[in-house]
């Protein structure tokens, strides 16, 4: 009986498999018949899911219009970890024609001569200084040349829960704060955060943090902890002298501020909130559960809240994240996703046609709207602002236009530096102790240690650069 059942199931599976093999859909790499003689452009992107789908629509539109005219056909492949795939393919001599990488990998690739300069092509299409917002134009350059254009940019701001502000209006007023507006300086910000912290008392009599005003390392805000020095007027990298400046007093001040939250609330509470209280991209996101009142996040937050917790749509607002420097307003950090042409790609001109198409104002605004991000272009249409899924998009646009906008450090070892600094911050937030002295490691000590390590790594990198240059000269 058992045997019969087993045989039936196995046969059914075999029949299913066979019919799939014989009659199933086949991988279809052929071009449509009327496009057989077109130049085929391979475009690899990093997105998945809906975001990938949005770009697919734009690729389809290009193929239908400009591509048909100019005999260019774009084949679109979008998968995660596209940087690894691009690296391996470029090394193997078969790179994609357009690679959708991001700001972190951009500098790495450029420093290794792995991207083709785009100055002439951009100029030919009328994309010059003045077409982009200054911060993005600067970010796409390395050593004076243009190596990338933008696919979607972002700027980050303070996202705060208006409803919690109103519900806690009494506590805020008691602290001398206005519940109808967000904090405007870091000092005020700390006061708001403290006033909004809510505690409960456990059965053992200990106070327990139920809701926090702000937690620097909680899974949404921690995306940009490495960039916090900008709000304090400092930077970990000096682009002119090309060296690390982790021990700059303003950087120390930044991480003193970050650690102050752990000192005030206790590392247990902070750890609990930092511990993926539901990670960012889960149904248990802290902001959406109302356990955190303020965050530093990007414009996509609006779409996120709208899809995951539409009941919260009217409850939140965005404003510039306050800075610690009096008079320094509208500080922001601008990450971006770009379109680049790797070295070795054979169809530079055609590839750029597609990149230029994406950068046409109507196309770019459509893409940024779908991805719920701001636009990198200097000129922005009223339609874009009016129909954008983020009701506070003007805040993000204004921030991106601000003279106090910053982008990622233009240092070839940026990924490594970023990882190192993040690990350091994790230790600071956990109030890690020095095993020798038993005392909590201060930000100054940690920064000094990292400064030494990163400087050594950077020196090593420069040595490697020299060796490579010498090697190239000696080669015929």
């Amino acid at each position, binding site marked *: 009986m058992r045997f019969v059942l*087993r045989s039936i*199931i*196995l046969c059914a*599976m075999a029949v299913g*498999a066979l019919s*799939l*093999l014989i009659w*199933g*859909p*086949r*991988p*279809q*790499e052929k071009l449509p018949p009327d496009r057989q003689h077109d130049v085929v452009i*391979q475009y690899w992107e*990093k*997105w*998945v*899911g*809906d*975001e*990938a*789908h949005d770009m697919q629509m734009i690729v389809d539109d290009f193929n239908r219009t400009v591509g048909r005219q100019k005999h260019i056909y774009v*084949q*679109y*492949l*979008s*998968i*995660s*970890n596209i940087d*690894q*795939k691009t690296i*391996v*393919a470029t*090394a*193997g*001599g*078969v790179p994609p024609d357009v690679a959708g990488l991001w700001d972190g990998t951009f500098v790495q690739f450029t420093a290794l001569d792995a991207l083709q300069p785009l100055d002439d092509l951009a100029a030919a299409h009328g994309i010059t200084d003045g077409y982009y917002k200054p911060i993005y134009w600067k970010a796409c350059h390395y050593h004076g040349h243009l190596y990338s254009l933008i696919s979607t940019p972002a700027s980050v701001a303070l996202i705060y829960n208006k409803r919690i502000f109103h519900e806690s209006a009494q506590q805020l007023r008691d602290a001398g704060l206005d519940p109808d507006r967000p904090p405007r300086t870091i000092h005020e910000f700390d006061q708001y955060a403290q006033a909004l912290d809510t505690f409960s008392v456990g059965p053992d009599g200990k106070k327990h943090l139920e809701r926090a005003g702000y937690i620097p390392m909680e899974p949404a805000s921690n995306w940009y902890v490495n960039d916090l020095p900008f709000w304090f007027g400092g930077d970990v990298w000096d682009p002119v002298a090309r060296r690390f400046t982790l021990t700059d007093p303003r950087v120390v001040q930044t991480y003193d501020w970050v650690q102050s939250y752990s000192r005030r609330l206790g590392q247990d509470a902070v750890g609990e909130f930092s511990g993926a209280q*539901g990670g960012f*991209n*889960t*149904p*248990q996101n802290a902001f*959406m*559960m109302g356990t955190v009142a303020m965050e530093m996040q*990007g414009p*996509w937050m609006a*779409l*996120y809240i709208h*899809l*995951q*917790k539409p009941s919260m749509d009217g409850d939140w607002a965005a404003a510039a994240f306050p800075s610690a420097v009096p008079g320094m307003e509208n500080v922001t950090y601008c990450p971006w996703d770009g379109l680049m042409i790797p070295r070795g790609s054979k169809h530079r001109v055609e590839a750029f046609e597609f990149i230029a198409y994406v950068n046409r104002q109507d196309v770019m605004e459509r893409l940024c709207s779908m*991805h*719920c991000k701001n636009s990198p272009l200097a000129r922005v249409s009223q339609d874009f602002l009016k129909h954008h899924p983020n009701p506070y998009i003007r805040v993000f646009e204004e921030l991106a236009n601000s003279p106090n906008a910053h982008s990622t450090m233009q240092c070839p070892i940026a990924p490594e530096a970023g990882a190192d600094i993040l690990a350091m911050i994790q230790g600071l937030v956990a109030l890690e102790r020095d095993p020798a002295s038993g005392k909590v490691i201060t930000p100054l000590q940690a920064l000094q240690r990292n400064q030494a390590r990163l400087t050594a790594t950077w020196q090593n990198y420069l040595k490697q650069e020299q060796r490579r240059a010498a090697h190239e000269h000696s080669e015929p």
Partner: protein
Amino acid sequence: MTYLGLLAVSAIALMPFLWMISTSLKTDEHLSDYPPQLVPVPTQWVNYKNAVMSEKAKFPLWTRNTLIIAVLAALGTTASSSIAAYGFAKIRFPGRGLLFAIMLGTMMIPFPTLMVPQFNIFEWLGSHTGIPWIGTFRPLWVPWWFGSAFNIFLLRQFFMTIPDELSEAARIDGCNEWGIFWRIVLPLARPALTVVALFTFMFVWRDFLAPRIYLQHPSQYTLTLGLQAFQAQNGFTPWNLLMAASVLVIAPLIVLFFMAQKTFIEGIATTGLKG
């Protein structure tokens, strides 16, 4: 008593899987519930249909692709690994020990360091033999036809337990080495071969590293690559659909395992994994 132990172990093993199924049946609003409900009410079975019929999903295509690669890999590795294992197990020749050590060594080299040179080899093969490799399924199943160290090791251990007297008798009867392999050893080894085929099939079914590196067109995606259609980076991940899709992806493997259990667990037993 044993039952209690079994239940405890099963509960632990089953928990994440149960959570997967429970999430796959939730409606959108209840996804964000805290604490999460274990048995979703209302139960939305249509999630499975939505996952399969979704515009972004191409389950039949992905399944077919994955099926082709996994079946070819499983067949190839069973054939080639058994042949090589026989050589290591049953034929005494000078240098055998050294080659066996080298083979074991290849299991120990971390894959990331080999990735780039291997890619370049496939690219070179493609441009010098006229048969394209990168951007096709070939790099995903052809190497399995040249034996896999783990499987060769496993089968060698198994072959070594088959008594030499059987081979000797056949040799006296005039059988050549291949005949002994084909007619005596292989039939006795059926359970071990089933394990090798099944484990390889399962591994390739769920592999995403190799497909991501070598495939270059979305219509070539395997199931695990296709699952990404249900994710998002800065957007909204439909967890219920993602879980439903994941359950569908591993369902055939669960059924296969259940069916094949008796064959190899009790079959391997007659001689066992020693030697």
